[in-house]
C-alpha cells in the first residue's frame, strides 16, 4: 500500500476551491431543492463534473489513475459537501473506488459510471457480514438502505463469498426505493442468481472511511447552518434589539459552537489515525468516537437552528430546515450514536490504560 500524500493547507484550499463549483459557498440551494423528492435525485452533468475534479479517485493510488490522497483529504471534501448539502453520493463512490478492478475503474473515475456499495442487510447495523451468496458467477443478495441507489449503474455487493460487482440492469436484479426526509432515497436491492463478477479485497476499511466521511459531512452541515443562525441572531430584531444580544441566546450559541469544535477535533483525530495506518481496532474506536459525536451534535445544532430562528425556520422556503432533514437522515446512517458508543465500549482498551 502506498502512503497517502499528507494533507497540507494548500491541498485543503484546492479542495475547497474545487468544491465551490458544486456547492456554492454562499449557500445557493436552488439546485439542491430542484433535485429533492425526484428520482434519481442527482444531476448526471454534475456527476461528470465531479469526475473531472478528480474527487472519485481521491482515495485511488496515483499509479492507478487516482489522486492518492488520504482520509484527511476525504474528510475535508466531505465537510465541503455537507456545507453545500450536495446530494450526489460522492463519498460512498470514492471510498470503494480503490477496490474496483482496473477495467471498471476508468469509467468510474471519469464519471461515466456510478458504482455504489451495497453492504447492509439489517436495519441499525454496522455489520458487513453477509448472508448473500456468490456462486459460479451468480449473485443472490438482499441489501437495504443503499443511499441514492437509483442513480447507480452498478453496485459493489458484500457476500459471504467475498465482494461482487453487479450491474444495476442485470437480469434478476430489482431495486425499490423509499424517499428520505432530505429529498433523497434509500434503495432496497434484490438480486436472484444475477450475473456478477467476483472482486478481490474486503469492504471493512472502506466502510470505516465512509462512516468517518459521514461524520465529516455532518460537520459541514453544522458549520453552515450555524453560520446561517449567527447571521440571523445578528440581524433579527425584537423588543428593539438584535435578538443575538439576549444572553439566553448567546449562551445557547456558545454551547453549539463548543459541540461543533468537539466534533471537528474528533474527526481530525480520527482521520489522522486512519492515515497513520492504525490497527483495525484502533481505527474503529476513533471512527466510532467521531460518528457518535457528529450524530448527536448535528441533531442538536440543527434543532437549535430552528428554535433560534423562530417561526420562519418552520417553513420549507427557509433553508434551515434543509439542514435539519439532512441531519435526520445521516445521524443514523453508518450507525447511530448509540450503536457507535456500544462498539466503542466493546473495542476500546480499559480506561486505566489511558493513565500511562
Amino acid at each position, binding site marked *: 500500500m502506498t502512503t497517502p500524500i499528507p494533507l497540507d493547507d494548500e491541498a485543503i484550499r484546492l479542495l475547497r476551491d474545487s468544491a465551490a463549483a458544486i456547492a456554492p459557498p454562499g449557500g445557493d440551494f436552488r439546485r439542491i431543492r430542484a433535485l429533492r*423528492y425526484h428520482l434519481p435525485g442527482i444531476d448526471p452533468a454534475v456527476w461528470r463534473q465531479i469526475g473531472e475534479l478528480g474527487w472519485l479517485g481521491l482515495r485511488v493510488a496515483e499509479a492507478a489513475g487516482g489522486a492518492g490522497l488520504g482520509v484527511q483529504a476525504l474528510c475535508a471534501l466531505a465537510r465541503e459537501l455537507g456545507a453545500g448539502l450536495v446530494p450526489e453520493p460522492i463519498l460512498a463512490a470514492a471510498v470503494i473506488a480503490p477496490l474496483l478492478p482496473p477495467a471498471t475503474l476508468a469509467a468510474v473515475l471519469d464519471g461515466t459510471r456510478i458504482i455504489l456499495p451495497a453492504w447492509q442487510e439489517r*436495519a*441499525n447495523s454496522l455489520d458487513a457480514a453477509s448472508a448473500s451468496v456468490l456462486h459460479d458467477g451468480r449473485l443472490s443478495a438482499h441489501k*437495504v*438502505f443503499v443511499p441514492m441507489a437509483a442513480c447507480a449503474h452498478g453496485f459493489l455487493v458484500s457476500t459471504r463469498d467475498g465482494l461482487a460487482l453487479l450491474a444495476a440492469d442485470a437480469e434478476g436484479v430489482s431495486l425499490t426505493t*423509499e*424517499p*428520505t*426526509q*432530505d429529498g433523497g432515497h*434509500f434503495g432496497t436491492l434484490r438480486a436472484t442468481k444475477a450475473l456478477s463478477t467476483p472482486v478481490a479485497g474486503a469492504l471493512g476499511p472502506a466502510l470505516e472511511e465512509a462512516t468517518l466521511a459521514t461524520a465529516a459531512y455532518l460537520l459541514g452541515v453544522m458549520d453552515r447552518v450555524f453560520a446561517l443562525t449567527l447571521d440571523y441572531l445578528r440581524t433579527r*430584531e*425584537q*423588543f*428593539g434589539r438584535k435578538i443575538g444580544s*439576549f444572553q*439566553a*441566546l448567546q449562551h445557547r450559541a456558545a454551547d453549539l459552537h463548543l459541540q461543533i469544535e468537539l466534533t471537528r477535533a474528533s474527526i481530525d483525530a480520527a482521520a489522522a489515525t486512519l492515515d497513520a495506518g492504525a490497527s483495525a481496532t484502533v481505527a474503529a474506536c476513533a471512527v466510532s468516537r467521531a460518528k457518535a459525536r457528529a450524530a448527536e451534535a448535528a*441533531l442538536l445544532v440543527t*434543532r437549535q437552528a*430552528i*428554535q433560534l430562528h*423562530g*417561526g420562519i*425556520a*418552520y*417553513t*420549507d*422556503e427557509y433553508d434551515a*430546515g434543509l439542514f*435539519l432533514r439532512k441531519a*435526520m*437522515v*445521516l*445521524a*443514523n*446512517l453508518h450507525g*447511530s*450514536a*448509540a450503536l457507535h458508543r456500544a462498539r466503542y465500549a466493546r473495542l476500546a482498551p480499559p480506561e486505566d490504560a489511558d493513565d500511562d
Partner: protein
Amino acid sequence: MTDPHAALDQLDDAGFRALVRGWLRANYPPELRNPPHRLHLAAARPWYDRLAAQGWLAPGWPREHGGMGLSAARQMIMIEEFERHGCARLPDHGIVMVGPLLIQHGSEAQRARFLPKILSGDHIWCQGYSEPNAGSDLASLRTEAVLEGAHWVVNGQKTWTTLATDANWIFLLARTDKTARKQDGISFLLVPMDSPGISVRPIVNLELQDEFCEVFFDNVRVPRENLVGAVNRGWSMAKALLGFERIFLGSPRQSAYALARLRRLAEHVGVAEEAGFIERHTRLRLDLADHQALYEVFAARLRRGEVLGAEVSMLKLHQSELFQRITEAMLEIAGEAAGLLEPMAGNRDLHPSGLFIQARPTSIYGGSNEIQRNILARDVLRLPG
C-alpha cells in the same frame, strides 16, 4: 329550557369516562384515527359535525352559551379519552379562543351572533396575531385599523396564521392608536375572511404541508361593531387568552401520545428489553407522570375558580420539551428509519421522523420557550430585569 347535559352530572368520573369512550367508539370516523398531520377542515368536517350534533364541541363553555359546562377535571377526562382514541385535532380556534373571549368580553349582540355559528361549525376561525416583525414582541405589531365612519379600515400583514385557508373568520389584533404606549394602542377585531382586500398565501411548513399562511390586508373595511371590548384594550384580553392557550398547550396529551409511540417503536425495532432503552424510557415516563401531576395542580386551581398567574408558563415549557425529548429518543432508536419521509413500512402508525418534525414548533408557537423562561424569571421569581 331543558339542560341537554344534565344527565352527565349524575355520573361519577368513571361513569363519565366510560360514556365518552363508548360514544367515541360508536361515532368517531375510523378513517380519521391518528392522522399523520393536522387535518384541513374538509377532512375534519365529519368529525366536527358529529361533535356539533352531540353538543360536545365546547366542553369548557358555560351551558347557557351552548357549552357542556364541564369542570376542568371532566374536561381533562374528555381530552384523555379523545387522545386515547386517536381523535384528530379540529380547526378549534373558535372553540378554544373566540368563544371564551366573547363570553368574557363580548357584547350581548356579539355572543348571540357568533357563538351559535361556532357551535354549528358555520364559522371557522383563525388567529391573526403574529406579523413578520412582531413575533415574540407581539405588542410591536403594525397592522393598523383606522375608524372611518361606521367602519374600521384595516391595512397590514399577518403571518404564520394556522389554517387561514380553511377559516372564514379571523380574529385580529390591530393598532388603533399609534401615539400611546405600544400595549395601550391595540384593539381586537373580528373580520370575515371574504372581505374585499384580504388575500391569503399558504406557506409550506417543515412537514411539507400548507398549514399556515400569510394574510394581507389592503384597505379592508370592517363594521365598527366587530370590535371586541373597548377600543385600545385588546392587549390585556389577548394576554388573558394566551394564558388560556398555555394551559391548553401544557396538557400532557402530545407527550402521552408520543411516549406510547416510543414504546411501540422500541418493540418494533427490538430494543424494548435493552437496559439502555429501559432506563431512557422510564426517565421519560416519570417525567410524564410528574408533568401530569403538575398539570393536575393547575387544573385543581381552575376548578376552584382561581385565576392562573404567570406560573402556568411552566406547563407549556415542560410539555413541549418533554414531547421533543421523546421524539428525539424515537429518532435515535429508529436506526435508518429516522430519515424516512413516510411512515415506516409495515407499520403506518410509526412515523418517528414525522413526529420529530411535528414536535419542533411546540417550543416556538404560543410564546417561545425562551419567552416562557423570561416570564418565569421575571414575573414568578421576581429576578431583577
